[in-house]
C-alpha cells in the first residue's frame, strides 16, 4: 500500500515532491497551492487518509494516515507591501524566517506564539495559538486577512482578501483560523502587519501569584495599554517565584509614557529587562510550552485567572503556565492522563471556561479531541461544516474526541 501511495505521489509531484518520514510513511511536500490541492484530490479519490504536518515542531506527527502532507516546501514569502502593511506568505514559512524578512522592510507581525522559532506560520494559524502579545494585538484571527486552503477533497478556496477591511461574502477565513486543519490544509496566508515598533520594552515583577494578579488588575484599571500583561509560573520563567511581565511596543513617546505610568501603579517593584535580554526572555517563554507532551489553553478573563490556575494546580499540576492577565487565556503545559483531562474539561465547562487541547500525542487527541464540551447544537453545525470541507473524511484530524 505504502509503495502504491509513494508511486502515485511521485507521478503527481515528481521525485522532489515526495519522500518518506522516519517511519517510512510516504510524505508529499507540495510547493504550491495547486500542487497541494492535487495531492488532496488524489487522496480523496483513493480514500487515503492524510496527516497534515508543518515542520513537525508543534503537534507530533503521529496521526494515523496513508500519507503525510507537509507544508515544508511551501516556504516562500510571496509578496510584501510595506506601504499597505500586508504580506502573502506560504503556510510552511518558518516564523523566524518570516520575522527577519518582514523586519528588512520595516514591518512586524504582532504574534508571539508558543513553540520553536522554526514553527511554521500555517501551524500557528491552523491551531490559533497566539502568545502573550494577544493582550494588545488580539488573537490570531485578527492578523489574518485571508487564506488559500485546499479542502479535504482538493478544491482550492480563496477566503478573504489582501485588504485590511473587507466584508465581501461570508468570512470563511474565520473557519480556518483555529480550525486545526479539520476544514482543509492552509497553503497561503494574507497577513495584516504593523510597522516595526520603534520601541519595545519589557518590564517584569516577581512575587507571590496573588500579589501579581491583583497588580495586573490595577494596571488594567489604570487603563494602561501594555501589548502584553502575562503571568508566568516559576517553572516556565525558570525563577523561584511567579513573574508578571508587561511589554510595551510602539512609538518611543508612547512606550516611555506607559512605562512611566506603570511605575506609579500599585506597589510592585517593576524591573525593566535590559534590551538585549528581551528577545531571549520571550523566546524562553515560547519554548516553555514544549516542556511537556500536552499543551492546553483555557479561555478565561482576568478576574478568573487565579481561580482557574488553582483548578489546574489541583487537578493536574501547577507546571508550566502562561496566563494573559487581561486578555482571557491561560496556557498550560505538562503531562496528564486522559481521564484527568476529561474531568478538567467538564469542570471548566461548568464554569463557562472553554478548554482547547492545543498539543498532545495522537492517542490523547483522539480520545479527548482538540475541542469538546460543545454547547447544544454546536456539534451538529461543526459536523455539517466538516462534511462540506472534507466530504471523504480524508483529513486525519481529531477535532472532537471519542467518549
Amino acid at each position, binding site marked *: 500500500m505504502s509503495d502504491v501511495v509513494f508511486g502515485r505521489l511521485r507521478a503527481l509531484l515528481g521525485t522532489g515532491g515526495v519522500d518518506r518520514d522516519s517511519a517510512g510513511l510516504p510524505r508529499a511536500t507540495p510547493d504550491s497551492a495547486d500542487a497541494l490541492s492535487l495531492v488532496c484530490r488524489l487522496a480523496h479519490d483513493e480514500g487515503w487518509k492524510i496527516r497534515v504536518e508543518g515542520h513537525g515542531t508543534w503537534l507530533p506527527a503521529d496521526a494515523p494516515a496513508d500519507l503525510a502532507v507537509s507544508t515544508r516546501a511551501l516556504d516562500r514569502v510571496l509578496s510584501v507591501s510595506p506601504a499597505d502593511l500586508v504580506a502573502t506568505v506560504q503556510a510552511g514559512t518558518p516564523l523566524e524566517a518570516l520575522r527577519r524578512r518582514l523586519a528588512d522592510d520595516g514591518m512586524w507581525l504582532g504574534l508571539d506564539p508558543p513553540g520553536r522559532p522554526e514553527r511554521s506560520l500555517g501551524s500557528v494559524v491552523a491551531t490559533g495559538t497566539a502568545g502573550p502579545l494577544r493582550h494588545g494585538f488580539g488573537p490570531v484571527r485578527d492578523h489574518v486577512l485571508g487564506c488559500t486552503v485546499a479542502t479535504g477533497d482538493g478544491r482550492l478556496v480563496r477566503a478573504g482578501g489582501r485588504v485590511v477591511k473587507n466584508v465581501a461574502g461570508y468570512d470563511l477565513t474565520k473557519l480556518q483560523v483555529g480550525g486545526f486543519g479539520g476544514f482543509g490544509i492552509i497553503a497561503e496566508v494574507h497577513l495584516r502587519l504593523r510597522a516595526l515598533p520603534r520601541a519595545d520594552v519589557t518590564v517584569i515583577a516577581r512575587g507571590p501569584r496573588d500579589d501579581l494578579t491583583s497588580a495586573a488588575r490595577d494596571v488594567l484599571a489604570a487603563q494602561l495599554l501594555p501589548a502584553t500583561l502575562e503571568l508566568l509560573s516559576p517553572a516556565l520563567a525558570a525563577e523561584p517565584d511567579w513573574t508578571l511581565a508587561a511589554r510595551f511596543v510602539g512609538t518611543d513617546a508612547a512606550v516611555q509614557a506607559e512605562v512611566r505610568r506603570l511605575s506609579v501603579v500599585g506597589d510592585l517593584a517593576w524591573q525593566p529587562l535590559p534590551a538585549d535580554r528581551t528577545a531571549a526572555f520571550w523566546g524562553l517563554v515560547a519554548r516553555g510550552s514544549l516542556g511537556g507532551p500536552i499543551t492546553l489553553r483555557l479561555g478565561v478573563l482576568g478576574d478568573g485567572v487565579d481561580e482557574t490556575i488553582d483548578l489546574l494546580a489541583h487537578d493536574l499540576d501547577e507546571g508550566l503556565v502562561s496566563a494573559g492577565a487581561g486578555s482571557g487565556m491561560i496556557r498550560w503545559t505538562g503531562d496528564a492522563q486522559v481521564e484527568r483531562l476529561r474531568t478538567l474539561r467538564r469542570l471548566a465547562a461548568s464554569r463557562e471556561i472553554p478548554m482547547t487541547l492545543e498539543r498532545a500525542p495522537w492517542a490523547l487527541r483522539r480520545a479527548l479531541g482538540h475541542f469538546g464540551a460543545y454547547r447544544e447544537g454546536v456539534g451538529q453545525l461543526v459536523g455539517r461544516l466538516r462534511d462540506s470541507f472534507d466530504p471523504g473524511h480524508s483529513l486525519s484530524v481529531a*477535532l472532537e474526541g471519542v467518549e
Partner: protein
Amino acid sequence: MRPELIDALGHIVGPRWVRHRRAELATYTMDGLPTRESFPGVVVMPGSSAEVRAIVRLLHLTATPFVARGAGTGLSGGAVADPDSVLVALTRMNRILEVDPVRRRATLQPGVVNARLSEAALPHGLQYVPDPSSQAACTVGGNVAENAGGPHCLKYGVTTNHVVELEVVLPDASVVRLGSSQGEPWGPDLVGLFVGSEGMFGIATEIVVRLEPIPPSVRTMLADFSTVRSASEAVSAIIRTGIVPAALEMMDRACVQAVEASIYAAGYPTDAAAVLLVEVDGDPDAVEAESRTVIEILRERGAREVRSASTPADRARLWQGRKKAFGAMGRIAPDLAVQDAVVPRSALPDIMDRIEEIRRRHRLSISNVFHAGDGNLHPNISFDRRDADLAGRVQLACREIMAACVNAGGSITGEHGVGSDKIDYMPLIFDPDTLAAMRAVRLAFDPEERANPGKVVPVHACREWRATPAAR
C-alpha cells in the same frame, strides 16, 4: 401572504405587532439603498428571544422564507424582503441586558441602537468602538449581520473584532450559543463565521460585545491639501511611522462644499482639493508627541493649514462635517448612491484619479468621503432616479469604479455588505470554488436557504460541490 400565517404570527406576538396592510408595509419596502424596492409579505415584530424562536419555528413548519431587519439603515439592500417573505423587524428587542465594567462586556438584544450602547458604557469609562456613520439609528444586530465598520475601526477593528458571543435562532428554530464571553471559542470560531453573514445563517437574539476603555487623551487634526494625491500620500506616510491613528478620514472638494453649503457647516476650507481628519489617542504624553509627528508629516506632504483640537467640544466641531457628510450630500439631489469599496492604501492616489476620470466621462456628481487609513472608499453619486438616462450612467459608473478597485487588488465592499446590490460583483473577486464554499457554509446553517434568500452569494456562479455524505 396567507391569512392563516398572518393570524398565527399574531398569536405569537399579539396582533398589534403584525403589519400586513399595504400602507403599513410601505415603511419596509427599502433600506438605505435607493435602487431596490420590494413589499414584504408581512412584517412581524417580536419582543423577546422566545417570540423570535416561535416565529422561526412557524416559518420552518410552513417553509416560509424570512428576512431579519434592524433599523433598515443598511446600504446594500440586504434588509429588503420579497412579497413571499416574512420580514422580522427586531427593533422592539432594544434592551441592554447587562454592562459589566470589570470584565468589559455588554450583553444586549439585537435591536439596541449602536450609539445607545456607548452611552450606557460611558459612566464606566468604557465605549463600544465600532461607530458607523448611521450610529444614531442603526442597531447592533444589523451591525453584526453586516460586520459594520466606522471611522474608529482603523485602530480598534470592526464589529467582528468586538463580538465575543451570540445567541442565534437557526432557521430550523433551534437555538445555539456561539462563542464565549471569555474570549476563546468553544471549538471552531463560529462567531467569526456568523458576523457578516448578512442575515443568512439565522437571527442573533442576544449579543455579547467587548467594551474598550475610553482613551485618556484624544487629539483631532484637520489638514487641507491642494491636491487629492498629496493628501493620499500623506495617509501612507503617517501609517509608515508606526503611529496607528484612531481615525484617518478624507473628504474631497465636492464633499467639503456640500457640507459647507448645508446646516452642518463646520468651517472646512471650501477651496481645498481634499481635507484629512486625523485622530490620535492614548496616553497624554504619547498623544502630544505623536500629534507633533503627524503635523510634521502633514506639512511635509503639502498641507496648507493644520488645525488641531483636544477638548470634546472643539473635536466635535472638526468631526461634525465628516459625521454629517452623508446628510449634507442628501441635499444636492433626490438620490444618493453611497458606494463602498476597498483598495490597498498605496493605491489610493491612483484610484482617486481613476474615479475622477470615470466621473467626468459619465458627467456625474461624485463626492468622496472615506476611511483613508484603511483604504475604504465611499464615492457617493448624487442623482435623480426619475432621470432614466442619468440613473443608467450611475449604474455604469458604479460598475467601473468596482472593477477599478478590484483591479487594484481591492474588494467590492469594506463595510456595507453585498446584500442584493453587489451580488453581481461577487464573481469579480471570488472564483466558483470559493463561492461554492460560501454556499456550503450557508447550507450548514440553513439547509433550506430560507434566511434572507437570494442575497450575497450568486448561486449560479458557484461550482457544484459534491453532495455531502450522511452524517458523520
